[in-house]
């Protein structure tokens, strides 16, 4: 189990390989990578991600501990950036390793659903015309009800 909350970028491929190498005995590794998307209308200058230092790390650690309790996992990893990111940059990554694929997939989806709505991050989209906070989606809140 590891949590990293950082402003600097990271290399998802290198992280995936290091995670897989360390999770010895796990046959199944699932990763999720979140990438900054441009607006549907184009013109995103940057995405600014604000977070709550201290609570962010502890909230994610709690989410990971819950995943470990629910599924048979060999290991898990969450990396989440804050600060200013351009379109195409990697925002965050989740990885799970398990003896069987169903555990790895479900734990990764669970971690993502909780990160979306329960980890203290807030996204703001900045364009030449101004800035707007990204609104929470009802679908993200609803996604929690399945767990």
């Amino acid at each position, binding site marked *: 189990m590891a949590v990293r909350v950082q402003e600097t970028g990271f290399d998802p491929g290198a992280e995936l390989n290091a995670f897989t190498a360390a999770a010895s005995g796990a046959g199944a590794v699932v990763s999720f990578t979140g990438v900054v998307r441009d607006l549907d209308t184009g013109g995103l200058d940057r995405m600014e991600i604000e977070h709550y230092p201290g609570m962010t790390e*502890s909230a994610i650690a709690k989410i990971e501990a819950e995943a470990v309790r629910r599924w048979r996992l060999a290991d898990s990893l969450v990396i989440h950036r804050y600060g200013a990111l351009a379109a195409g940059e990697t925002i965050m990554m989740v990885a799970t390793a398990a003896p069987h694929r169903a555990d790895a997939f479900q734990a990764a989806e669970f971690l993502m659903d909780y990160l979306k709505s329960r980890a203290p*991050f807030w996204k703001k989209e900045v364009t030449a015309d101004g800035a707007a906070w990204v609104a929470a989606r009802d679908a993200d809140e609803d996604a929690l009800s399945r767990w």
Partner: protein
Amino acid sequence: MIDVLYFAWVRERIGLPRERVETGAATVAELVEELRAREDRYAAAFADLSALRVAVDQELADFDASLDGAREVAFFPPMTGG
């Protein structure tokens, strides 16, 4: 004395990220009432509590949560991580 933190548009509306507040409020809701009464910018930030979330000592809480022994309360909109 309690540390009160604001994030995202709550921070922007109130105009500061954190402040120390002298309060006798027993619950989060009572603290909100005190803040609302201060100035328009607070009243604007706390106009619709259904659009706000709260954490007490870095744990998500309800507005009726007790502030007994609490050192830090944070107000923010629904989170948008991931």
